[in-house]
């Protein structure tokens, strides 16, 4: 399944931040939805700002346009305001892109757990994201930090408890 780019993607001015406030707002909104749908398509969870500049997401080789790092920062900042992104370090070099909110991931995981009668069982995080049993599930391959966020969301609902041990974390569902 190939990714369907929005029409703006082949429109050169889209790759330059627009000075007009209203136009810029629309442009940023389009970029935000592009980033979210692209990351969802490729199942990307963490994105490095410098690296991502070379990815097709911000670099359209066909029209030879790419978004500058500063502009990417602006787009990411916009995503952060909308609650879809979190910076993973102070320098704002790595970001966690949440095209699905942690609560939603938690819900998916919990559904799987209860469907399989595994409430009240203990799991390792590796088992959840890389185990053979979850291969067909959407959360298979979920990055650990995202997984952890999802489990913490479940924890606040009282449906799970994250267990920290010397070598790695686990979780128990209730």
């Amino acid at each position, binding site marked *: 399944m190939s990714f369907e780019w929005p029409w703006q993607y082949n429109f050169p001015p889209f790759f330059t931040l627009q000075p007009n406030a209203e136009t810029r707002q629309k442009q940023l909104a389009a970029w935000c939805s592009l980033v979210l749908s692209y990351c969802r398509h490729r199942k990307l969870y963490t994105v490095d700002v410098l690296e991502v500049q070379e990815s097709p997401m911000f670099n359209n080789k066909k029209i030879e346009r790419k978004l500058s790092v500063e502009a990417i920062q602006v787009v990411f900042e916009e995503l952060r305001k909308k609650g879809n992104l979190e910076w993973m370090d102070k320098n704002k070099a790595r970001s966690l892109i949440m095209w699905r909110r942690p609560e939603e991931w938690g819900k998916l995981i919990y559904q799987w757990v209860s469907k399989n009668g595994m409430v009240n069982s*203990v799991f390792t995080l*590796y088992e959840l994201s890389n185990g053979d049993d979850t291969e067909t599930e959407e959360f298979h391959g979920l990055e650990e930090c995202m997984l952890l966020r999802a489990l913490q969301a479940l924890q606040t609902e009282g449906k799970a*408890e*994250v267990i920290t041990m010397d070598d790695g974390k686990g979780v*128990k569902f*209730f």
Partner: protein
Amino acid sequence: MGNVFVGKGRPSRVTEQDRVILQLKQQRDKLKQYKRKLTVQLEKERFLARQLLKDGKKERALLLLKKKRYQAQLLDKTETQISNLERMVQDLEFAQIEVKVLEGLKVGNDCLKKMHEALSIEEVERIMEETQDAIEYQKQVDEMLAGCLSQEDEEAVLAELEAITQDEDVQLPEVPTEPLPAVPELEHGSKPAKVKQEGMILLAE
């Protein structure tokens, strides 16, 4: 980081056994990762050996195959260990369930005991006795009330009973074959005639 929300008021629901299970599962995960690594290596070496054979380096290919064989054995061992660990986890989980079942039975037993305490034999005897007394009392009252009917009432009751029994006894006379007799006869037995008529209507229906 993971326990940010725990410890604030409500106690952790993770038991010591849960931690042990987690530890076992972590061990299993490591073995699984190791297994994955071995599988990848085996695949690579098989390819390499073939390459070497093609190049005519039989000695080296043989050496490589030996190494590969050893790794395959390791893989087998890893598999057994994984299944050992998994069995252990299952045993632990089942033991936890058994403990829960026992706890449940204990609670039920205690509850039953308490309820039996409330139901002492003396209490039951007393209540049954009291009930018996009450029944006796009721009987007395009934008798007294039954005696209240006057002679006249009794007669009326008997008469009514008679009437009811008679009603039931009434039998339909044979349907006469000869032509009806004169009128005076009719006046005399008006009641049975009526009954007969009703019977005929019923038959007609």
